[in-house]
């Protein structure tokens, strides 16, 4: 009993955080989503009005398309890149700890303002990237002022922050028994064959975990696109999270923004549920059948 009380005390900060900073706003946002609350006036109940408006709003639908496009590009690219680097860093190389730290730094920097400014400079019309490709005779690419260019820039920024997925992959790779590789090698298996036949199947739970986490993060992405490209040309990088922010804090339609938040939440839940439904077909747990 005493232990359980101490345990409770230990998790109290987390518990308080989740109740007051997550669950309370979560439920409150649902309530607000049925009102026309605008921060200043007292809210009026509007029923499903905000939700109906959202479905009719072409801008909202366009932000959903941009968000889905962003998620489809970033998640597989980021996971593939993270796995590739983790695979290399799993070898016993000289100075490996330095490389592991170096590759994790972009994740620490993330989408902060300094990085955003740097990123804009890199991809501007006369920025480093265009100057670099100009050396090879290529024409400058309008990275920031063309819809596809702007999307590429924010996708690259996200993929660049692969550190956390990489660390989780690295831990999973270390757990793959070496005997399996040795046995495969004796049977004449190449490294590539072993990678796809041994490594990948054994780390599928980690791939699944990273996939769910990165998918949820990508759907909620805000900082990078907001700071680097904003809406982008023709709203190409206007993600749903930014649409929610604009409606809440620029136009002060808190009810409308809350409804959009809830719709996004439902979409994320639905995609997560679909991923969980597919895991029986491709994720192999070591305790399977126990």
């Amino acid at each position, binding site marked *: 009993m005493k232990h359980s009380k101490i345990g409770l005390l230990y998790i109290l900060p987390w518990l308080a955080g989740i109740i007051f900073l997550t669950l309370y706003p979560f439920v409150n946002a649902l309530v607000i989503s049925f009102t026309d609350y605008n921060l200043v006036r007292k809210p009026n109940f509007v029923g499903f009005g905000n939700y109906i408006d959202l479905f009719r709003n072409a801008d909202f639908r366009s932000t959903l398309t941009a968000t889905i496009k962003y998620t489809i590009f970033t998640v597989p690219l980021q996971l593939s890149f993270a796995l590739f680097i983790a695979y290399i860093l799993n070898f016993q190389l000289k100075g490996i700890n330095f490389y592991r730290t170096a590759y994790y730094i972009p994740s620490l920097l993330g989408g902060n303002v300094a990085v955003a400014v740097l990123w804009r400079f890199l991809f501007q019309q006369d920025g480093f990237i265009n100057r670099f490709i100009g050396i090879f005779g290529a024409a400058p690419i309008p990275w920031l002022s063309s819809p596809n260019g702007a999307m590429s820039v924010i996708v690259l920024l996200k993929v660049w922050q692969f550190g956390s997925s990489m660390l989780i992959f690295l831990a999973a790779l270390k757990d793959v028994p070496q005997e399996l590789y040795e046995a495969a090698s004796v049977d004449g298996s190449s490294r590539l064959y072993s990678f796809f036949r041994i490594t990948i199947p054994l780390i599928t739970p980690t791939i699944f975990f990273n996939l769910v986490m990165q998918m949820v993060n990508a759907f909620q992405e805000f900082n990078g696109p907001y700071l680097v490209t904003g809406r982008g040309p023709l709203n190409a990088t206007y993600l749903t999270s930014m649409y929610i*922010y604009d409606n809440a*804090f620029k136009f002060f339609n808190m009810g409308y923004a809350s409804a959009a938040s809830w719709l996004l939440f439902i979409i994320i839940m639905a995609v997560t549920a679909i991923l969980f439904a597919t895991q029986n077909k491709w994720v192999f747990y070591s305790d399977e059948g126990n």
Partner: protein
Amino acid sequence: MGMRKTTGMMCAAILAASMLATGCSSKTAEPAKGETAGKDAGGEVALNFSWWGNDDRHQATQKAIDAFNTAHAGKIKVTGEPSGFGNLEETFATRYAGGTAADIMTVNYPWVLQYSPDGNGFYDLDQVKDIFDFSQYDPEFLKFGQRAGKMQAIPYGQNTLGFYLNKSAFERAGIKELPKTFDEYKKAAEAFTKADPNSYLIVSPTFRFAAIYYLQQKTGKGEFADDLSMNYTQEDYKDALIWYKDLADAHVFCSRKDYIENVGNEPVSIAQNAKFINGGYAGVLEWTGGIASNAKTLSDKGDQLAIAPLPVIDGAKFEGTMAKPSLTFAISKDSKNPKAAAEFLQYILNDPEGTKLMGSTRGMVASKAAKASLEADGQITGVVKDAYDFTANAKVINNSPIFENAKFTDAYDKNYEKFEFGQSSADDAAKAIFDAISEENAKLKQQYK
């Protein structure tokens, strides 16, 4: 397996839910009282003062605060809360609604109506007229800060939209005399683009500034009437779109594409923009409030800013520009020390020493005492003096308090962008602007009726 699935789903749900935690909490009741600073144990009154601006404004204001604090040591201590030009209204609205607004606030002119439609949104400044000297202001001008007969905010000065050009860049391009007409601007743009095909003569934070400049001259009316009704038709918006696009194609006005590439998507001050500093943009279409910042960034590089004569469109019914009261100052209705706050306002807005320290970083002052102090200190010289003269002489239409609603500007920029990128015709873009403005206008009229 089942347990693992349930736990996993819960984790995903909590993660997804966590995004809802941002920005969606509500506080529908009156702003919380007692959150402003009060007296500390030593009896010293603690006040905070919020403002926005560029570095020059921050430095000047901090100097004024320091001098005020020194002069009132042990009695009043003011702490500054500076911020940049970004997300102004988001920040203000959140603090206002959360009851955490500063004791002394910088308030944009439209917010006076928005946050105090009934005259109760801010502290009633008539209560401190024995401390703050309102006689330094034109009584008509003070009306901009009144709601329902109550003095809610003190307007700082008049902001006038004008063309401010990098005179040195024009001279380098071989143009000795600044353009006076749009045809002369087109000719000048040819000279500039010969040297740098990516250069533009005028950059503006939003297409809307140029569009309203044109539509005011075309119709002789401001965008909204006194009863908040719309003055422009769909056809007017179409003309404005075509007019601007023609000038953007001629590199007179910055194209939307170039703006996105070099500035961003949002309407922001151009003073710190690299392309403006380097002469890639040879001028700005902005409020006089920012002229000192623009002039300073150019002078730091050895270039000189000059105010150009207002160009007039063919067949103009009005040969001027638009104006608005620049920012205003209010005291929080929740402030525990409104008298001390009024004392501070008196210092920075009317006192010879305070106004001298505040300088011209907020544009033209309206207070007679402040203007006299700045003149005596030799601060109203050069481009700043030109700005005073320009403000005094320009024919203006004052814009409506609902003018700066973000949805209006958004509708202009978004639909001009579609038009310029070839995603919509001028007719469709004009209809989209007209519809968006009509919809928001109807809501605002209902709200403020």
